[in-house]
Protein backbone atom coordinates (compact mmCIF):
# COMPACT_ATOMS: atom_id res chain seq x y z
CA UNK A 1 0.00 0.00 0.00
CA UNK A 2 1.17 3.49 -0.72
CA UNK A 3 2.21 5.71 2.09
CA UNK A 4 -0.63 7.54 3.72
CA UNK A 5 -0.41 11.19 2.80
CA UNK A 6 -1.38 13.47 5.59
CA UNK A 7 -3.22 16.52 4.38
CA UNK A 8 -2.28 19.43 6.57
CA UNK A 9 -4.82 22.22 6.91
CA UNK A 10 -3.57 25.26 5.04
CA UNK A 11 -3.53 28.83 6.19
CA UNK A 12 -3.03 30.44 9.59
CA UNK A 13 0.51 29.02 9.95
CA UNK A 14 1.57 31.66 12.45
CA UNK A 15 -1.43 31.05 14.67
CA UNK A 16 -0.72 27.34 14.56
CA UNK A 17 2.92 27.79 15.48
CA UNK A 18 1.97 30.04 18.37
CA UNK A 19 -0.73 27.64 19.57
CA UNK A 20 1.52 24.61 19.30
CA UNK A 21 4.09 26.40 21.40
CA UNK A 22 1.53 27.49 23.99
CA UNK A 23 -0.01 24.05 24.25
CA UNK A 24 3.43 22.50 24.68
CA UNK A 25 4.22 25.04 27.36
CA UNK A 26 0.93 24.70 29.23
CA UNK A 27 1.07 20.91 29.04
CA UNK A 28 4.54 20.83 30.55
CA UNK A 29 3.55 23.46 33.10
CA UNK A 30 0.66 21.26 34.28
CA UNK A 31 3.15 18.44 34.78
CA UNK A 32 5.44 20.79 36.70
CA UNK A 33 2.65 22.28 38.84
CA UNK A 34 1.55 18.81 39.89
CA UNK A 35 4.92 18.52 41.64
CA UNK A 36 5.09 22.04 43.02
CA UNK A 37 1.57 23.12 43.95
CA UNK A 38 -0.35 21.47 46.77
CA UNK A 39 -3.79 22.15 45.31
CA UNK A 40 -2.87 20.87 41.85
CA UNK A 41 -1.34 17.79 43.44
CA UNK A 42 -4.55 17.20 45.41
CA UNK A 43 -6.78 17.64 42.36
CA UNK A 44 -4.70 15.07 40.45
CA UNK A 45 -4.82 12.67 43.39
CA UNK A 46 -8.60 12.68 43.13
CA UNK A 47 -8.52 11.78 39.42
CA UNK A 48 -8.46 8.09 38.49
CA UNK A 49 -5.18 6.44 37.47
CA UNK A 50 -4.64 6.30 33.74
CA UNK A 51 -6.84 9.38 33.25
CA UNK A 52 -5.98 11.36 30.10
CA UNK A 53 -7.35 14.71 29.05
CA UNK A 54 -6.92 16.63 25.83
CA UNK A 55 -7.29 20.30 25.04
CA UNK A 56 -7.28 21.58 21.49
CA UNK A 57 -9.16 22.79 18.46
CA UNK A 58 -11.75 21.07 16.31
CA UNK A 59 -11.24 19.31 13.92
CA UNK A 60 -7.50 18.95 13.27
CA UNK A 61 -5.91 20.31 16.39
CA UNK A 62 -3.46 21.40 17.54
CA UNK A 63 -3.87 19.34 20.69
CA UNK A 64 -2.14 18.74 23.95
CA UNK A 65 -2.62 15.65 26.06
CA UNK A 66 -1.91 15.39 29.77
CA UNK A 67 -2.37 12.20 31.71
CA UNK A 68 -1.93 10.58 35.08
CA UNK A 69 -0.13 7.26 34.65
CA UNK A 70 -0.70 4.05 36.58
CA UNK A 71 1.83 5.06 39.20
CA UNK A 72 -0.02 8.31 39.76
CA UNK A 73 2.57 10.46 37.99
CA UNK A 74 1.31 13.39 35.97
CA UNK A 75 2.81 13.62 32.50
CA UNK A 76 2.54 15.85 29.47
CA UNK A 77 1.88 13.27 26.76
CA UNK A 78 2.52 15.33 23.66
CA UNK A 79 0.27 16.52 20.87
CA UNK A 80 -0.95 13.30 19.37
CA UNK A 81 -4.50 12.36 20.34
CA UNK A 82 -4.87 9.43 17.97
CA UNK A 83 -2.87 6.76 19.80
CA UNK A 84 -4.35 7.37 23.25
CA UNK A 85 -7.62 6.87 25.03
CA UNK A 86 -8.82 10.28 26.05
CA UNK A 87 -11.19 10.43 29.03
CA UNK A 88 -11.92 14.12 28.80
CA UNK A 89 -12.01 16.25 25.70
CA UNK A 90 -11.96 20.00 25.97
CA UNK A 91 -12.52 21.05 22.42
CA UNK A 92 -12.53 24.59 21.11
CA UNK A 93 -14.75 24.79 18.08
CA UNK A 94 -12.03 26.28 15.85
CA UNK A 95 -8.42 27.35 15.76
CA UNK A 96 -9.71 30.93 16.14
CA UNK A 97 -11.51 30.06 19.35
CA UNK A 98 -8.38 28.39 20.72
CA UNK A 99 -6.43 31.48 19.72
CA UNK A 100 -8.84 33.73 21.64
CA UNK A 101 -8.36 31.51 24.68
CA UNK A 102 -4.58 31.37 24.47
CA UNK A 103 -4.11 35.03 23.75
CA UNK A 104 -6.13 35.57 26.92
CA UNK A 105 -8.72 37.67 25.16
CA UNK A 106 -11.25 35.29 26.62
CA UNK A 107 -11.41 33.19 29.78
CA UNK A 108 -12.27 29.48 29.84
CA UNK A 109 -15.71 30.12 31.40
CA UNK A 110 -16.53 32.83 28.89
CA UNK A 111 -15.37 30.64 26.01
CA UNK A 112 -17.61 27.93 27.37
CA UNK A 113 -20.50 30.33 27.86
CA UNK A 114 -20.21 31.59 24.26
CA UNK A 115 -20.47 28.05 22.90
CA UNK A 116 -16.87 28.02 21.76
CA UNK A 117 -15.65 25.38 24.21
CA UNK A 118 -17.16 21.92 24.40
CA UNK A 119 -16.47 19.58 27.25
CA UNK A 120 -16.97 15.86 26.75
CA UNK A 121 -16.39 13.52 29.63
CA UNK A 122 -17.28 13.05 33.25
CA UNK A 123 -18.29 16.45 34.64
CA UNK A 124 -16.78 16.30 38.14
CA UNK A 125 -13.43 15.44 36.55
CA UNK A 126 -13.86 18.22 34.01
CA UNK A 127 -14.42 20.69 36.86
CA UNK A 128 -11.19 19.48 38.49
CA UNK A 129 -9.22 19.93 35.26
CA UNK A 130 -10.53 23.48 34.86
CA UNK A 131 -9.42 24.28 38.42
CA UNK A 132 -5.96 22.83 37.67
CA UNK A 133 -5.62 24.92 34.53
CA UNK A 134 -6.68 28.06 36.42
CA UNK A 135 -3.88 27.56 38.93
CA UNK A 136 -1.34 26.79 36.22
CA UNK A 137 -2.24 30.02 34.44
CA UNK A 138 -1.56 31.99 37.61
CA UNK A 139 1.95 30.51 37.72
CA UNK A 140 2.65 31.18 34.07
CA UNK A 141 1.12 34.58 33.47
CA UNK A 142 1.72 38.03 34.83
CA UNK A 143 -1.12 39.11 37.11
CA UNK A 144 -2.70 41.61 34.72
CA UNK A 145 -3.06 38.93 32.05
CA UNK A 146 -4.02 36.10 34.39
CA UNK A 147 -6.84 38.29 35.72
CA UNK A 148 -8.39 38.20 32.25
CA UNK A 149 -7.99 34.46 31.94
CA UNK A 150 -9.56 33.32 35.21
CA UNK A 151 -12.58 34.36 37.25
CA UNK A 152 -10.84 35.21 40.51
CA UNK A 153 -7.16 35.89 41.01
CA UNK A 154 -6.11 33.93 44.09
CA UNK A 155 -4.64 35.58 47.17
CA UNK A 156 -1.37 33.71 47.50
CA UNK A 157 1.47 34.56 49.79
CA UNK A 158 4.39 36.38 48.25
CA UNK A 159 6.45 33.24 48.80
CA UNK A 160 4.04 31.08 46.84
CA UNK A 161 3.95 33.64 44.05
CA UNK A 162 7.72 33.95 43.74
CA UNK A 163 9.08 30.51 44.62
CA UNK A 164 6.17 28.65 43.02
CA UNK A 165 6.54 30.65 39.84
CA UNK A 166 10.28 30.01 39.59
CA UNK A 167 9.85 26.30 40.27
CA UNK A 168 6.99 25.82 37.84
CA UNK A 169 8.64 27.78 35.05
CA UNK A 170 12.02 26.12 35.53
CA UNK A 171 10.52 22.65 35.60
CA UNK A 172 8.39 23.47 32.56
CA UNK A 173 11.44 24.46 30.54
CA UNK A 174 13.59 21.51 31.52
CA UNK A 175 10.60 19.18 31.44
CA UNK A 176 11.04 17.62 34.80
Amino acid at each position, binding site marked *: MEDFVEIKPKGKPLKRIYLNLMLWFVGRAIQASAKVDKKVKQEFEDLPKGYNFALGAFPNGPWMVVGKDDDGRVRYLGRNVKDKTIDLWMTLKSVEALFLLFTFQESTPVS*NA*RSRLFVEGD*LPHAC*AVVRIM*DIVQVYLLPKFIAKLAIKRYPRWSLKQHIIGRILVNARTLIGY
Partner: protein
Amino acid sequence: MYVPDYYEFCCGVKTVAGHGTLERIPALLSDMGAQKPLIITDKGVSGAGLVDTVIASMAEALPTCPVEDDVPPDSDLKVVNRLASVYRKHKCDAIIAVGGGSVLDTAKGVNILVSQGADDLMAFTGANALKQKLNPLIAVPTTAGTGSEVTVAAVIADHEAKKKMLFGSPFLLPDAAVIDPRMTLTLPPHITAATAMDAMAHAVEAYTCLSKNPLSDAHALEAIELIRTHIVNVVRNPDDREGRLALATAATLAGIAFSNSTVGMVHTLGHSVGAVCHVPHGTCMAILLPYGLEYNLHKIEEKTAELLFPMAGSEVYATTPPKERATTAIAAIRKLNQDLFDATDGRHFTCFSQVKDPQGRQSITGPDIETIAATALGDGTIFYNPEDLDFEDCMMVLSAAWDGAPLDRSKIKQG
Protein backbone atom coordinates in the same frame (compact mmCIF):
# COMPACT_ATOMS: atom_id res chain seq x y z
CA MET B 1 -28.83 45.63 27.89
CA TYR B 2 -25.80 43.42 27.40
CA VAL B 3 -25.09 41.98 23.94
CA PRO B 4 -22.34 39.33 23.86
CA ASP B 5 -20.27 39.16 20.68
CA TYR B 6 -21.52 35.65 20.05
CA TYR B 7 -24.48 33.70 21.31
CA GLU B 8 -26.83 30.93 20.30
CA PHE B 9 -30.52 30.70 21.01
CA CYS B 10 -32.95 28.00 20.05
CA CYS B 11 -36.53 27.35 20.97
CA GLY B 12 -38.21 24.91 18.66
CA VAL B 13 -41.13 23.81 20.80
CA LYS B 14 -44.64 24.61 19.70
CA THR B 15 -46.35 25.88 22.81
CA VAL B 16 -50.07 25.40 23.18
CA ALA B 17 -51.17 27.14 26.35
CA GLY B 18 -54.51 28.07 27.81
CA HIS B 19 -57.74 26.72 29.18
CA GLY B 20 -58.95 23.60 27.44
CA THR B 21 -55.75 22.92 25.54
CA LEU B 22 -55.70 19.21 26.43
CA GLU B 23 -58.55 18.77 23.97
CA ARG B 24 -56.19 19.94 21.23
CA ILE B 25 -53.78 17.01 21.66
CA PRO B 26 -55.41 14.62 19.15
CA ALA B 27 -55.34 17.33 16.48
CA LEU B 28 -51.71 18.12 17.27
CA LEU B 29 -50.86 14.44 16.96
CA SER B 30 -52.62 14.06 13.65
CA ASP B 31 -50.76 17.14 12.34
CA MET B 32 -47.62 15.19 13.17
CA GLY B 33 -48.93 12.13 11.37
CA ALA B 34 -49.48 10.09 14.53
CA GLN B 35 -52.60 8.45 15.88
CA LYS B 36 -51.54 5.93 18.54
CA PRO B 37 -49.83 7.65 21.45
CA LEU B 38 -48.43 5.96 24.56
CA ILE B 39 -49.05 8.01 27.70
CA ILE B 40 -46.06 7.96 30.05
CA THR B 41 -46.54 9.28 33.55
CA ASP B 42 -45.87 8.50 37.21
CA LYS B 43 -47.99 7.14 40.04
CA GLY B 44 -48.29 10.53 41.74
CA VAL B 45 -49.74 12.13 38.63
CA SER B 46 -52.11 9.28 37.83
CA GLY B 47 -53.11 9.01 41.50
CA ALA B 48 -54.12 12.66 41.48
CA GLY B 49 -56.50 11.87 38.62
CA LEU B 50 -54.61 14.00 36.11
CA VAL B 51 -54.19 11.21 33.57
CA ASP B 52 -57.93 10.60 33.71
CA THR B 53 -58.42 14.26 32.85
CA VAL B 54 -56.06 13.94 29.89
CA ILE B 55 -57.73 10.76 28.65
CA ALA B 56 -61.23 12.21 29.07
CA SER B 57 -60.23 15.32 27.14
CA MET B 58 -59.01 13.24 24.22
CA ALA B 59 -61.72 10.54 24.40
CA GLU B 60 -63.72 11.71 21.42
CA ALA B 61 -60.83 11.50 18.98
CA LEU B 62 -58.76 8.83 20.75
CA PRO B 63 -61.04 6.39 22.55
CA THR B 64 -58.27 4.03 23.63
CA CYS B 65 -54.83 5.02 24.67
CA PRO B 66 -52.32 2.82 26.52
CA VAL B 67 -51.04 4.31 29.79
CA GLU B 68 -47.82 3.47 31.62
CA ASP B 69 -47.68 5.11 35.02
CA ASP B 70 -44.80 3.19 36.52
CA VAL B 71 -42.04 5.78 36.25
CA PRO B 72 -40.30 6.02 39.65
CA PRO B 73 -38.88 9.40 40.78
CA ASP B 74 -35.35 8.05 40.20
CA SER B 75 -36.17 6.63 36.80
CA ASP B 76 -33.40 4.72 35.07
CA LEU B 77 -32.28 2.72 32.08
CA LYS B 78 -34.32 -0.33 33.06
CA VAL B 79 -37.54 1.68 33.07
CA VAL B 80 -36.67 3.16 29.69
CA ASN B 81 -36.00 -0.27 28.20
CA ARG B 82 -39.23 -1.67 29.63
CA LEU B 83 -41.35 1.22 28.34
CA ALA B 84 -39.76 0.94 24.91
CA SER B 85 -40.95 -2.65 24.66
CA VAL B 86 -44.45 -1.60 25.76
CA TYR B 87 -44.44 1.06 23.03
CA ARG B 88 -43.42 -1.53 20.45
CA LYS B 89 -45.92 -4.11 21.70
CA HIS B 90 -48.81 -1.66 21.33
CA LYS B 91 -47.42 -0.45 17.97
CA CYS B 92 -47.54 3.13 19.18
CA ASP B 93 -46.33 5.99 17.00
CA ALA B 94 -46.06 8.86 19.50
CA ILE B 95 -45.58 9.61 23.20
CA ILE B 96 -47.50 11.91 25.52
CA ALA B 97 -45.44 12.57 28.64
CA VAL B 98 -47.62 13.77 31.50
CA GLY B 99 -45.57 14.87 34.50
CA GLY B 100 -42.40 16.59 35.60
CA GLY B 101 -38.74 16.33 34.70
CA SER B 102 -38.26 12.64 35.52
CA VAL B 103 -41.24 11.52 33.43
CA LEU B 104 -40.20 13.66 30.49
CA ASP B 105 -36.57 12.50 30.61
CA THR B 106 -37.75 8.89 30.67
CA ALA B 107 -40.06 9.60 27.73
CA LYS B 108 -37.17 11.15 25.82
CA GLY B 109 -35.06 8.05 26.45
CA VAL B 110 -37.88 5.78 25.27
CA ASN B 111 -38.34 7.94 22.19
CA ILE B 112 -34.67 7.60 21.26
CA LEU B 113 -34.87 3.80 21.41
CA VAL B 114 -38.13 3.39 19.53
CA SER B 115 -37.35 6.02 16.88
CA GLN B 116 -33.86 4.74 16.18
CA GLY B 117 -34.90 1.10 16.39
CA ALA B 118 -32.13 0.63 18.93
CA ASP B 119 -31.67 -1.42 22.10
CA ASP B 120 -28.75 0.41 23.60
CA LEU B 121 -29.19 4.00 24.79
CA MET B 122 -25.47 4.28 25.45
CA ALA B 123 -24.82 4.80 21.72
CA PHE B 124 -26.68 8.12 21.83
CA THR B 125 -25.16 9.78 24.89
CA GLY B 126 -23.30 13.05 24.81
CA ALA B 127 -23.89 16.21 22.87
CA ASN B 128 -25.52 16.00 19.46
CA ALA B 129 -25.22 12.24 18.99
CA LEU B 130 -28.70 12.13 17.46
CA LYS B 131 -28.74 12.82 13.76
CA GLN B 132 -32.39 12.62 12.84
CA LYS B 133 -35.82 13.61 14.03
CA LEU B 134 -37.48 11.31 16.51
CA ASN B 135 -41.12 10.23 16.67
CA PRO B 136 -43.67 12.78 17.90
CA LEU B 137 -43.43 13.62 21.59
CA ILE B 138 -45.88 15.88 23.41
CA ALA B 139 -45.08 17.17 26.88
CA VAL B 140 -47.84 17.97 29.35
CA PRO B 141 -46.19 19.49 32.44
CA THR B 142 -47.90 18.92 35.78
CA THR B 143 -45.89 21.41 37.81
CA ALA B 144 -45.21 25.03 36.97
CA GLY B 145 -41.49 25.12 37.56
CA THR B 146 -38.95 22.83 35.94
CA GLY B 147 -39.39 24.10 32.40
CA SER B 148 -38.21 20.70 31.20
CA GLU B 149 -40.85 20.84 28.44
CA VAL B 150 -38.57 23.21 26.53
CA THR B 151 -35.09 21.85 27.28
CA VAL B 152 -32.79 19.96 24.93
CA ALA B 153 -31.27 17.77 27.60
CA ALA B 154 -32.23 14.50 29.23
CA VAL B 155 -30.54 12.70 32.11
CA ILE B 156 -31.08 9.00 32.55
CA ALA B 157 -29.49 7.05 35.36
CA ASP B 158 -27.97 3.63 34.95
CA HIS B 159 -28.27 2.36 38.52
CA GLU B 160 -26.42 -0.87 37.78
CA ALA B 161 -23.38 0.91 36.38
CA LYS B 162 -23.85 3.67 39.00
CA LYS B 163 -23.68 6.48 36.51
CA LYS B 164 -25.81 9.04 34.79
CA MET B 165 -26.11 9.31 31.05
CA LEU B 166 -26.47 12.79 29.70
CA PHE B 167 -28.15 13.39 26.36
CA GLY B 168 -28.19 16.69 24.55
CA SER B 169 -29.71 17.27 21.15
CA PRO B 170 -32.20 19.63 19.57
CA PHE B 171 -34.08 16.49 18.51
CA LEU B 172 -34.87 15.87 22.17
CA LEU B 173 -37.05 18.94 22.34
CA PRO B 174 -40.68 17.84 22.53
CA ASP B 175 -42.67 18.62 19.39
CA ALA B 176 -45.22 20.43 21.48
CA ALA B 177 -45.73 21.53 25.06
CA VAL B 178 -49.37 21.56 26.10
CA ILE B 179 -49.90 23.83 29.06
CA ASP B 180 -53.30 23.49 30.61
CA PRO B 181 -53.94 24.98 34.07
CA ARG B 182 -56.10 21.97 34.94
CA MET B 183 -52.83 20.06 35.34
CA THR B 184 -51.56 22.27 38.15
CA LEU B 185 -54.88 23.11 39.81
CA THR B 186 -54.54 20.41 42.47
CA LEU B 187 -50.91 21.11 43.41
CA PRO B 188 -50.73 21.78 47.17
CA PRO B 189 -49.83 25.40 48.07
CA HIS B 190 -46.32 24.70 49.38
CA ILE B 191 -45.40 22.74 46.25
CA THR B 192 -46.87 25.48 44.09
CA ALA B 193 -44.67 27.95 45.96
CA ALA B 194 -41.47 25.89 45.72
CA THR B 195 -41.87 25.02 42.04
CA ALA B 196 -42.63 28.63 41.14
CA MET B 197 -39.46 29.65 42.97
CA ASP B 198 -37.57 27.10 40.87
CA ALA B 199 -38.84 28.92 37.78
CA MET B 200 -37.87 32.22 39.43
CA ALA B 201 -34.35 30.85 39.98
CA HIS B 202 -34.13 29.80 36.32
CA ALA B 203 -35.08 33.29 35.19
CA VAL B 204 -32.85 35.14 37.66
CA GLU B 205 -29.81 32.95 37.00
CA ALA B 206 -30.35 33.06 33.25
CA TYR B 207 -30.30 36.86 33.52
CA THR B 208 -27.25 37.14 35.76
CA CYS B 209 -24.93 34.29 34.78
CA LEU B 210 -22.16 34.15 32.21
CA SER B 211 -24.07 32.83 29.25
CA LYS B 212 -26.82 35.46 29.18
CA ASN B 213 -27.97 36.88 25.87
CA PRO B 214 -30.66 39.38 24.84
CA LEU B 215 -33.14 36.76 23.66
CA SER B 216 -33.03 34.73 26.84
CA ASP B 217 -33.05 37.98 28.85
CA ALA B 218 -36.40 38.95 27.36
CA HIS B 219 -37.89 35.62 28.39
CA ALA B 220 -36.36 35.85 31.85
CA LEU B 221 -37.69 39.33 32.62
CA GLU B 222 -41.22 38.43 31.57
CA ALA B 223 -41.09 35.25 33.66
CA ILE B 224 -39.99 37.12 36.79
CA GLU B 225 -42.76 39.67 36.48
CA LEU B 226 -45.43 37.01 35.98
CA ILE B 227 -44.26 35.02 38.98
CA ARG B 228 -44.00 38.06 41.23
CA THR B 229 -47.49 39.19 40.25
CA HIS B 230 -49.27 35.86 40.73
CA ILE B 231 -47.38 33.57 43.09
CA VAL B 232 -48.74 34.67 46.47
CA ASN B 233 -52.26 34.94 45.12
CA VAL B 234 -52.22 31.43 43.69
CA VAL B 235 -50.75 29.99 46.88
CA ARG B 236 -53.59 31.63 48.84
CA ASN B 237 -56.25 30.73 46.27
CA PRO B 238 -55.27 27.42 44.65
CA ASP B 239 -58.33 27.53 42.37
CA ASP B 240 -57.22 30.72 40.67
CA ARG B 241 -57.16 29.37 37.11
CA GLU B 242 -55.87 32.58 35.55
CA GLY B 243 -53.06 32.72 38.09
CA ARG B 244 -52.24 29.05 37.48
CA LEU B 245 -52.00 29.71 33.75
CA ALA B 246 -49.77 32.73 34.39
CA LEU B 247 -47.41 30.68 36.58
CA ALA B 248 -47.29 27.82 34.07
CA THR B 249 -46.51 30.32 31.33
CA ALA B 250 -43.80 31.86 33.49
CA ALA B 251 -42.24 28.43 34.06
CA THR B 252 -42.08 27.83 30.31
CA LEU B 253 -40.62 31.29 29.70
CA ALA B 254 -38.00 30.71 32.37
CA GLY B 255 -37.29 27.27 30.92
CA ILE B 256 -36.62 28.80 27.52
CA ALA B 257 -34.37 31.40 29.16
CA PHE B 258 -32.20 29.01 31.14
CA SER B 259 -31.95 26.33 28.49
CA ASN B 260 -30.37 28.98 26.26
CA SER B 261 -28.15 30.62 28.85
CA THR B 262 -27.83 28.07 31.65
CA VAL B 263 -27.80 28.58 35.40
CA GLY B 264 -25.14 29.17 38.06
CA MET B 265 -24.33 28.57 41.71
CA VAL B 266 -27.92 28.50 43.01
CA HIS B 267 -28.30 25.35 40.95
CA THR B 268 -24.73 24.17 41.63
CA LEU B 269 -25.44 24.12 45.36
CA GLY B 270 -29.11 23.18 44.96
CA HIS B 271 -28.34 20.09 42.88
CA SER B 272 -25.89 18.98 45.55
CA VAL B 273 -28.30 19.56 48.45
CA GLY B 274 -30.83 17.51 46.49
CA ALA B 275 -28.35 14.73 45.77
CA VAL B 276 -27.00 14.45 49.31
CA CYS B 277 -30.08 15.16 51.43
CA HIS B 278 -33.01 14.56 49.05
CA VAL B 279 -34.51 17.99 49.64
CA PRO B 280 -36.97 18.91 46.85
CA HIS B 281 -35.34 20.98 44.13
CA GLY B 282 -37.76 23.92 44.37
CA THR B 283 -37.19 24.22 48.12
CA CYS B 284 -33.43 24.44 47.57
CA MET B 285 -33.94 27.07 44.88
CA ALA B 286 -36.17 29.27 47.04
CA ILE B 287 -33.68 29.19 49.91
CA LEU B 288 -30.49 29.62 47.88
CA LEU B 289 -31.61 32.22 45.34
CA PRO B 290 -30.94 35.35 47.44
CA TYR B 291 -27.54 33.93 48.47
CA GLY B 292 -26.49 33.36 44.88
CA LEU B 293 -27.18 36.99 44.01
CA GLU B 294 -25.49 38.20 47.18
CA TYR B 295 -22.37 36.13 46.59
CA ASN B 296 -21.95 37.31 43.01
CA LEU B 297 -23.03 40.88 43.72
CA HIS B 298 -19.66 42.56 43.03
CA LYS B 299 -19.69 41.03 39.55
CA ILE B 300 -23.36 41.43 38.66
CA GLU B 301 -24.53 44.50 40.52
CA GLU B 302 -25.89 46.24 37.43
CA LYS B 303 -27.79 43.18 36.20
CA THR B 304 -29.22 42.51 39.66
CA ALA B 305 -30.32 46.14 39.87
CA GLU B 306 -32.19 45.71 36.59
CA LEU B 307 -34.09 42.82 38.13
CA LEU B 308 -35.71 45.13 40.67
CA PHE B 309 -38.06 46.35 37.94
CA PRO B 310 -39.81 43.02 37.27
CA MET B 311 -39.26 41.90 40.87
CA ALA B 312 -40.95 44.85 42.59
CA GLY B 313 -42.69 46.89 39.91
CA SER B 314 -42.05 50.23 38.23
CA GLU B 315 -42.89 52.38 41.23
CA VAL B 316 -40.44 50.77 43.61
CA TYR B 317 -37.81 50.74 40.88
CA ALA B 318 -38.23 54.44 40.18
CA THR B 319 -38.16 55.49 43.81
CA THR B 320 -35.14 53.39 44.77
CA PRO B 321 -31.78 55.16 44.35
CA PRO B 322 -29.75 53.37 41.63
CA LYS B 323 -27.07 52.34 44.11
CA GLU B 324 -29.59 50.47 46.27
CA ARG B 325 -31.50 48.73 43.50
CA ALA B 326 -29.46 45.51 43.52
CA THR B 327 -29.67 44.99 47.26
CA THR B 328 -33.35 45.95 47.21
CA ALA B 329 -33.96 43.27 44.56
CA ILE B 330 -32.30 40.68 46.79
CA ALA B 331 -34.37 41.87 49.75
CA ALA B 332 -37.49 41.54 47.57
CA ILE B 333 -36.73 37.86 46.99
CA ARG B 334 -36.30 37.30 50.74
CA LYS B 335 -39.59 39.12 51.35
CA LEU B 336 -41.31 36.94 48.75
CA ASN B 337 -40.02 33.81 50.51
CA GLN B 338 -41.32 35.16 53.81
CA ASP B 339 -44.75 35.95 52.28
CA LEU B 340 -44.89 32.41 50.93
CA PHE B 341 -43.87 31.06 54.35
CA ASP B 342 -46.79 32.95 55.87
CA ALA B 343 -49.23 31.96 53.13
CA THR B 344 -48.42 28.25 53.53
CA ASP B 345 -48.46 28.19 57.34
CA GLY B 346 -44.73 27.65 57.41
CA ARG B 347 -44.57 24.87 54.83
CA HIS B 348 -42.57 26.99 52.39
CA PHE B 349 -39.11 27.12 53.90
CA THR B 350 -36.88 30.17 53.99
CA CYS B 351 -33.71 28.51 55.36
CA PHE B 352 -32.25 25.01 55.47
CA SER B 353 -32.61 24.58 59.25
CA GLN B 354 -36.40 24.64 58.79
CA VAL B 355 -36.43 21.82 56.24
CA LYS B 356 -37.88 18.59 57.64
CA ASP B 357 -38.49 15.29 55.89
CA PRO B 358 -41.99 13.72 55.88
CA GLN B 359 -41.18 11.99 59.21
CA GLY B 360 -40.43 15.35 60.80
CA ARG B 361 -36.67 14.82 61.02
CA GLN B 362 -34.15 17.50 60.11
CA SER B 363 -33.31 16.95 56.41
CA ILE B 364 -29.89 18.57 56.51
CA THR B 365 -27.51 18.13 59.42
CA GLY B 366 -24.12 19.67 60.16
CA PRO B 367 -21.90 16.97 58.63
CA ASP B 368 -24.04 16.95 55.47
CA ILE B 369 -22.94 20.48 54.64
CA GLU B 370 -19.34 19.38 53.99
CA THR B 371 -20.49 16.57 51.72
CA ILE B 372 -22.76 18.99 49.87
CA ALA B 373 -19.93 21.50 49.39
CA ALA B 374 -17.60 18.79 48.05
CA THR B 375 -20.28 17.49 45.68
CA ALA B 376 -20.97 21.01 44.41
CA LEU B 377 -17.39 21.38 43.14
CA GLY B 378 -18.13 18.69 40.56
CA ASP B 379 -21.38 20.16 39.22
CA GLY B 380 -21.12 21.50 35.68
CA THR B 381 -23.23 24.59 36.35
CA ILE B 382 -20.35 25.98 38.42
CA PHE B 383 -18.68 26.96 35.10
CA TYR B 384 -21.38 29.49 34.37
CA ASN B 385 -21.39 31.24 37.73
CA PRO B 386 -19.96 34.76 37.49
CA GLU B 387 -17.62 34.37 40.50
CA ASP B 388 -15.40 31.43 41.33
CA LEU B 389 -16.41 29.08 44.15
CA ASP B 390 -14.08 26.85 46.13
CA PHE B 391 -14.86 24.48 48.97
CA GLU B 392 -14.74 27.19 51.66
CA ASP B 393 -16.95 29.49 49.61
CA CYS B 394 -19.58 26.77 49.29
CA MET B 395 -19.35 26.11 53.04
CA MET B 396 -19.82 29.79 53.80
CA VAL B 397 -22.91 30.12 51.60
CA LEU B 398 -24.45 26.85 52.82
CA SER B 399 -23.93 27.74 56.49
CA ALA B 400 -25.55 31.14 56.02
CA ALA B 401 -28.43 29.50 54.14
CA TRP B 402 -28.81 27.04 57.01
CA ASP B 403 -29.22 29.88 59.52
CA GLY B 404 -31.20 32.10 57.17
CA ALA B 405 -28.85 35.01 57.82
CA PRO B 406 -27.75 37.22 54.94
CA LEU B 407 -24.18 36.66 53.70
CA ASP B 408 -21.47 38.69 55.33
CA ARG B 409 -20.26 40.37 52.16
CA SER B 410 -16.95 41.34 53.73
CA LYS B 411 -16.01 37.64 53.85
CA ILE B 412 -16.49 37.07 50.13
CA LYS B 413 -13.13 36.63 48.42
CA GLN B 414 -12.66 38.91 45.45
CA GLY B 415 -9.85 38.58 42.93
